């Protein structure tokens, strides 16, 4: 049965025909380790939950008959 209530059901990727796809991943390019350790606001918490959810189902691709994938 098609499962629509998995990890993606909790996500809300936004697509905009003008500009592209906006992810749920916050950009930490300019954040130092020291600041990162202290962050605790709502958007940050959402982003944490997002990446933690994504670890539940790692994508594995395998070709050849020796290594079977689990995706």
């Amino acid at each position: 049965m098609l499962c629509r209530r998995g990890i993606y059901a909790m996500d809300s990727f936004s697509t905009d025909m003008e500009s592209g796809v906006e992810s749920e991943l916050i950009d930490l390019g300019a954040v130092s380790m020291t600041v990162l350790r202290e962050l605790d606001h709502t958007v940050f918490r959402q982003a944490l939950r997002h990446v933690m959810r994504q670890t539940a189902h790692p994508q594995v691709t395998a070709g050849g008959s020796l290594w079977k994938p689990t995706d």
Partner: protein
Amino acid sequence: MTVPAEDHAASHDFALHRLSWADFDHLARGEGGAGVVLRLRSAERSRRLLLLRALVEETTKTPEVFGPLPSSEDAWELLARVQEKAPRALDLILAHPYAGTWAGYTMRLLRNRITGVCPMWMHVGHLHALAAAAAIHARLDFQTHIPLWNGGAMLPTLGLAQLAADSLWSVAEVRSERGQVEVGNDAASVQLPPVCAGDAPGWWGIQRLTMRAGEHVLSVRLDDLDPYRGLYEPVLPQRLDAAEVDAWRALLDQAWHLIVHHLPDIADALRAGLDSLVPRPAVAFQMPSASTGEAFGSAIIARPPDAASLAATLVHEFHHIRLGVLLRLARLHEEDPRERFYTPWRDDPRPIGGVVQGVYAFFGVTAFWRALARAGAKAPDRRAAFEFAHWREQAWRVLCVLRDDPVLTQAGRRFVDGIAERLGPWRDEPVPADLGALVAAVSADHYAGWRIRYLRPDPATVADLETAWLAGRTPPVATQLGTDRGPTPVPDGSWSSARADLIRLSVADPLNGWNMLSRTWPSVPDATAADFAYVTGRLTDAARGYRAELAADADRPAAWVGLGLALSGLGVTLASRALLHYPEVVRAVHRGIRARTHTVPAPEDLAAWIGRFAY
């Protein structure tokens, strides 16, 4: 200290990673070069930082989880010191593919409260090994402790110190002073060499292979040491010997030249996105390779027999790698784990996620072989032409099913359309007619082999056919042979890729085909004399051989399909149609008649009878 949420909400207006449609479309068409890859890398860096923070937070609640190792706060402080002194050293560790697999694996252990390959403290404690490696790259003075597994202390991206240890899991100290790094425990100590990539007493360095093709440089680690380099679970080192390293170096050098010469845009992307190769032993007549979305920049590859195979595999895996990050930013399909699709590159039914990955990866493979085939102006490269013709058709076949699937999102349909925009016109490009016939044979062979093992015909249809056959009647007119029940996950019988292997051997050496195959075919796994006869065009002998195989084992899938292929070549239309389009029905009816009467119908007579209404 944690700053109140409202303070941070006010002081940090974070942007979200965004993928422009221009980048998205470039990726879909297999284009984009290094620029797009670097933007994907930036998103992956943020994801790993978030995972690091999440891991530290999870373990801070239960500091005992670090066992004999220092707390996660110590590792974080060391990483912060690294960033202050040498930000590139931190970035190098954050970009390390197996920092990604470690973070994902360990997070799953923590969240599911399960034990991994090692005790939990060994897995969470790998954070100290990553921090120590970053600090060594940054040339910091520091001291810390890291996990020791089976006597090996791993410093990711650098190498492994071998120490004596009484137990399977213990602790080693890492100390760095004025550029001298020592790893030790109560029993022994190892001094890291000035160039860590080299070996020294007690030290295995991770070797870096650097290939140059003109101005294009590819530099990758050949990582046979990192415990998180595998697909699913941590693994112990499997050190390559010097001859094997040399073989990889030579192959990779030639493969890099091929990619630079024939697919410069892909080469540009590869050099920006490929960090590590995990070498695996060669496997005769197979080229296993794999990657995981958690290890951006890494591919696991069994040593291929030649440079072209390695180049094709690198392009294949790199498409998976790029798509893995894109899928973290954009949803291409709803979650649907049902294994319901046929794919010509796998023997088993696949879910939509695997199908999207496969179409994209084999689109890349097609691009490579196409470029190689077109390069041989005077003497066409028949192998490249065969592989091009084969994969363009297989990728297109699945793409056509995929693009109409309701589970695809709007973005997913756009992505598939991008692939089609490039792949579609390639189908009109000419290839030698004999190669086209071989492609058709390999394609029919695989599809029929998949059907006979994974499709279960409707039992009522099978019973009707058995009854009609035994009564000497014509097949029921209204019978539907096709099934809408979808594939089962359990194969009914084993499969052999021997005919495809033999065809590829004959394509590779067409002038010497028969002589070469007559010597080689017994070494091809599962190959039979009938397969050899079929591939060398002795179709009557092949049909006779497959009949004999079915007389010995009436359930053998490869023999049923082989008989269909041989009869097709001989122009026996009705029987071959049933055997290649509905082999699962023919075998099921054959089984039923055997069970009901203890007589054995001639396979091709039964197939021809069913073939009268099989379309």
